[in-house]
């Protein structure tokens, strides 16, 4: 406390060279947070926004009222999708390092925030992810080859060569087109949910955005509209502690949590252990159930840690301690689910190794196939003249002429 105002600038607890320190992350013991009815009034469950919903304890047991009691097959499926996501991420990072793709963004360490949440939703629910929920694509069965072709901008690229790698979409799988502009999808998801309500359909829209991005206007719009119209939506704020080099405290400021931003709008805000598959599943299910009952939007803060670099253009050793992840109190989502399954007697180290090997093989095969449709440097290339398509539903006259002009340029090149 000072006697004079001065510019207060929030600091991360540790910079390179410092000892990692996550004492600022407030934790609740697994099983400790009560689970209210999804019909509860928002004002009666405000404490959920500062506590931390956790199911898996350090002994790998599932505890408390939030335990979703999932069948072992479901858990194994979750584990498989997360493992595949991680292998995919690792291999695509390598592909970028080898110059086969131009750019990549990993979700390592935060696979559960996509996979567990996605599994708790219905296939008819519409998802509006950011660039770090590739697990959703894998979960919903968008082909690995298709995802890779997007990364390669090749002849089978769903984006027709137009988008940066990882900016996937899938209309049939109800995964909205990822935007490079942060947070724009959040109020769009609310709009989609309003649309569902207008049509009297019981589908829910779920969206994900980073804690850094929560500072954008769009997150405010989303809460204002969600609050007014009781849109059946779930707004996930993935608090992975970092926004490129920027500590979560710059967006979080003096606030009790990102989940607590919901309360002023009369929306429930729930803070959940984002590395706890069961907890993420349970909270998502709760929010979806609530939404489907016509009780509106829930804001979920998923507390996790961005274990990898922001993107392949980033070098986190410049701004945070190298060993920070090891100190992260919520561990790793894959390891925790795996150990839980083992503790249940439903899984083993051998099975896990086999699973990883399988994923590896799957990714290797997929990569070979994807590359056969063209890579950055060789193989078939999509037709540049397609760049004029889809600006409008039909080619207007001025674009027809520009397309012709480009065709001439390209012809000259060949000549």
């Amino acid at each position, binding site marked *: 406390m000072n006697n004079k105002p001065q510019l207060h600038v929030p600091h991360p607890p540790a910079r390179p060279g410092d000892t990692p320190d996550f004492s600022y992350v407030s934790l609740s013991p697994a099983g400790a947070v009560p689970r209210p009815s999804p019909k509860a009034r928002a004002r009666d469950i405000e404490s959920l926004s500062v506590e931390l919903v956790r199911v898996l304890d350090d002994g790998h047991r599932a505890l408390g009222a939030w335990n979703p009691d999932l069948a072992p097959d479901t858990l194994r499926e979750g584990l498989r999708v997360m493992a595949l996501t991680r292998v995919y991420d690792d291999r695509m990072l390598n592909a970028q390092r080898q110059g086969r793709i131009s750019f990549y963004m990993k979700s390592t360490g935060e696979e559960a925030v996509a996979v567990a949440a996605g599994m708790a939703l219905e296939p008819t629910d519409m998802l509006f992810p950011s660039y770090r929920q590739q697990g959703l694509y894998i979960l919903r069965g968008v082909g690995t080859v298709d995802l890779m072709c997007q990364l390669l901008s090749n002849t089978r690229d769903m984006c027709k060569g137009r988008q940066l790698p990882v900016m996937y*979409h899938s209309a049939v799988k109800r995964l909205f087109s990822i935007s490079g502009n942060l947070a724009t999808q959040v109020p769009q998801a609310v709009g989609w949910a309003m649309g569902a309500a207008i049509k009297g359909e019981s589908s829910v829209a779920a969206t994900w955005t980073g804690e850094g991005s929560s500072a954008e206007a769009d997150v405010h719009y989303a809460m204002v509209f969600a609050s007014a119209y009781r849109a059946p939506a779930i707004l996930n704020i993935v608090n992975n502690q970092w926004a490129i080099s920027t500590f979560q405290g710059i967006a979080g400021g003096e606030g009790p949590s990102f989940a607590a931003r919901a309360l002023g709008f009369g929306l429930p805000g729930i803070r959940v252990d984002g590395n706890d598959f069961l907890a993420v599943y349970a909270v998502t299910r709760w929010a979806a159930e609530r939404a489907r009952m016509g009780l509106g939007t829930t804001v979920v803060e998923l507390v996790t840690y961005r274990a990898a670099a922001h993107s392949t253009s980033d070098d986190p050793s410049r701004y945070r301690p190298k060993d920070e992840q090891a100190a992260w109190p919520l561990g790793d989502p894959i390891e925790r689910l795996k150990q839980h399954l083992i503790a249940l007697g439903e899984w083993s180290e051998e099975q896990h190794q086999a699973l990883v090997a399988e994923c590896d093989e799957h990714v290797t095969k997929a990569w070979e196939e994807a590359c056969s449709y063209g890579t950055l440097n060789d193989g078939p290339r999509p037709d540049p003249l397609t760049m004029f398509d889809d600006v409008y539903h039909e080619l207007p006259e001025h674009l027809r002429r520009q397309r012709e002009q480009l065709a001439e340029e390209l012809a000259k090149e060949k000549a």
Partner: protein
Amino acid sequence: MARMNMIQALNSAMHTLMEHDPSVVVMGEDVGYFGGVFRCTEGLQKRFGENRVFDTPIAEGGIVAAAIGMAVNGLRPIAEIQFADYVYPAYDQIVSELARIRYRSGGEFTAPVVVRMPCGGGIRGGQTHSQSPEALFAHVCGVKVVMPSNPYDAKGLLIASVEEPDPVIFLEPKRLYNGPFDGDPHKPAVTWNTHPKGEVPDGHYRVPLGTAEVVREGSAVTVVAYGTLVHVALAAVTQMQIDAEVIDLRSIMPLDTATILQSVKKTGRCVVAHEATRFAGLGAELSATLQEECFWHLQAPIQRVTGWDTPYPLAFEWEYFPGQKRMITALNKVLDPDPEVSS
């Protein structure tokens, strides 16, 4: 057929659309119970219910974002922005999202949203109720941009816009809501009652996007205009008693280049006109394209008649507005160019 002013024509368009297509919804500030500050949505909520016609929070970015989400979900939202001057909080959602969704998703997702907004000056609105931001949308590929100059076109263009698979920025020159306006504020206001374009069919019809209209034929000079300036141009050439051709663009993107080029190749002289500021305005695009395409036919440099490159000042509205005087000066320059002076 009925006599309508532009407000009634727009209202009739929305009625017609909503009757025919249950996916059409109307949203915006004060558009519900109240019927809009300009009354364009009057009666819609009563007729179609709150589920399809509703007030929104004062958050233009949220309005467009929500409309995008609704459109992705199969609805056809018509979003009203209360004044074009207040569209900028929605600019990111329009430029980065609305205009890009079809492209970036390889055509898999589309967001056919129509964003309606009153624009232009002449109603003592001062610098924040008078703007004409069409160039700021025209430069952004992926959205279409429309500006009617009369009730008939307003209804036909709005129906066409809502039925269009692409998003449309629909600009309504509010000075024309109640009557044609030739730029002379001292004359008594006239209504659409006696104007042929105030005759509006009751049912469904379209004025297709991308088609300009030659509203007056002539061979001495071409005036390319849209919105309020169409009426100013007609008044000016009538006053000057010249054989001018006047073209109402109606649609800014796509632009009906063929009609303009044909006219300017015939006349060899051209004035382009709009109310918006001049620098990097749409007039620049028209002039640049015309000189590229009609260079060898041009008998004189193309002149631009526009608002000045200042905000729209309340007290000097009529000194700002590009009225008949400015038009006549430009026409004279084009009809009788002085190579010494103008270069």
